[in-house]
């Protein structure tokens, strides 16, 4: 177990380093001069040189990379050229919207999907199964941002139960902030719940009629207990793996859905940064998102290993 843990952590660190290198290379070495983009084609050469110096892009490439990574490790994300404040301050502010949104959506998707998937598997090929599978087929096809628009249309414009967008901030009381996040959470969660339901059903069917289930039945245990005590825990592996993969889609979805609900999260910041050519912020944010995806997937591996020690033996 310890060897497995160490090796997985080593892979994680290596993946993060390579990811940072990719982000850096794409944004810094590919053709295109940010100073020229910011100042336009009519800029004077000395103005360009001054801006290049201010942006730090007159230094050798490898030095800039080491400087960036070194600063990141010491918690210094650099300075936003557009806001002229530390990028870490910006990220912390915006994280207070994006993180709760993504986590709540993931949780809602799981809470909806696992019981539905189990119910469908238990009633395989019967009406409930066909109905649930039909619904998930449609759910998978819905773009989350469109679900968001429809929710606004029905529950904010027509019924006025929820705000159509905007975010009051957590400091004016958690209630209003929470309410502002409900519709985006639902919009993000529904398509993911549809995918997860299908995975949960498949995992339950794969467990099918294993010996330990037959034994439990032979002992005369109640079917409900057999399902939830014996079958579901054994089906958790694929479900957790899928949730890890989905987190990547959820983060990407958050970037887009913040646009629909005018939420001041990391996604909104990313688009402002592009519009304002704030390359430091773009670079930090892309790495942050990619880093979160990589870390979550490593956590999923460890979680699966903790649930099912056989996996550790298989890879050792």
């Amino acid at each position: 177990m310890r060897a497995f843990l160490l090796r997985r952590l080593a892979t994680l660190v290596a993946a993060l380093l390579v990811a940072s290198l990719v982000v850096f290379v794409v944004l810094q070495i590919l053709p295109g001069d940010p100073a020229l983009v910011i100042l336009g084609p009519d800029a004077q050469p000395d103005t360009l040189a001054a801006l290049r110096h201010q942006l730090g892009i007159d230094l050798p490439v490898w030095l800039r990379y080491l400087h960036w990574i070194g600063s990141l490790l010491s918690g210094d994300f650099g300075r936003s050229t557009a806001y002229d404040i530390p990028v870490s301050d910006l990220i912390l502010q915006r994280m207070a919207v994006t993180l709760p949104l993504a986590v709540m959506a993931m949780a809602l998707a799981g809470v909806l999907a696992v019981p539905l998937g189990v119910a469908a598997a238990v009633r395989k090929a019967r009406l409930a199964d066909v109905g649930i599978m039909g619904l998930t087929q449609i759910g998978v096809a819905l773009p989350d941002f469109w679900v968001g628009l429809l929710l606004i249309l029905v529950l904010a414009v027509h019924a006025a139960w929820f705000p159509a967008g905007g975010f009051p901030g957590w400091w004016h009381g958690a209630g209003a902030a929470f309410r502002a996040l409900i519709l985006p959470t639902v919009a993000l969660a529904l398509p993911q719940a549809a995918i997860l339901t299908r995975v949960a059903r498949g995992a339950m069917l794969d467990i099918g009629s294993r010996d330990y289930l037959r034994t439990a039945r032979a002992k005369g245990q109640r079917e409900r207990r057999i399902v939830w005590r014996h079958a579901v825990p054994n089906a958790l592996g694929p479900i957790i793996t899928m949730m890890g993969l989905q987190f990547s889609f959820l983060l990407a979805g958050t970037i887009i859905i913040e646009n629909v609900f005018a939420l001041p999260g990391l996604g909104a910041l990313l688009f402002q940064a592009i519009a304002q050519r704030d390359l430091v912020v773009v670079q930090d944010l892309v790495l942050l998102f990619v880093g979160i995806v990589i870390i979550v997937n490593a956590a999923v591996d460890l979680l699966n290993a903790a649930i099912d020690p056989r996996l550790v033996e298989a890879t050792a």
Partner: protein
Amino acid sequence: MRVGLAIGGALTAGMLVLAALSLVWTPYPPTAIDIIHRLSRPSAAHWFGTDPFGRDVFSMVMVGTQDAVAVAALAVLLGTAIGVPAGMLAATRGGWTDETVMRGADLTFAFPAVLTAVMLTALRGAGAITEIIAIGVFTAPVLARTTRGAAAAIWVQDYARAARALGRTRRGVALVHVLPNILGLLIVQVTIQLSLAVLAEAGLSFVGLGAQPPAPSWGRMLNEAQTYIYTAPLLAVFPGLAIAAAVLGLNMLGDGLRDRFDPRRRRSAQ
């Protein structure tokens, strides 16, 4: 399940026909502005109504099909052109080549299309090419993994081993025995990726990272509809339905093809 295949095939064919038809005919020119009839409700003259500039929404949805089909097809083609050879190479060579390709796939998979699109947009501006590259980059690792997994399963089959024992080169076995046998599975995966690509394209053009005006795209139509959600709510409905129908069709087609190509699944489905 055969019903699913038929519905999926019909929806996909409908989308292709609509895209092709819109090249030569639409009820109205999709960019024709008619301010007098702006924001009109659906009627016999304008089946889906008109937008804030009086443009015919049905014509715009029709032309938007071109964007969805072209971007999704080219992006998945790019992803396939990278992913399938990489997966084949990993399965054929094994060892550290396999390890390198698979870790590379893991890493690439950590870049959702929207992040790649953001980086490319920061460098060279938004547009269809940016979209195609971003979605293609996200597609490649999925196809690499699928190819590698399926190919590895063929390599241990008796006929593949026999061909090696009879003196065929590894490359020969890969091309003559492995590739034809995993083709069905690859077609299924490509269909599924096409549906994901249509979804991703809609998302990217919704946030302005995709095709630029005046070329109509479903995502941008939804974005423009947001402004008029109080006065003309139906504008936010039709392009979304078009996206959902396209994705649903491709998904059902993929599922149907999978049942057909994979005998193991066919048996369990009965």
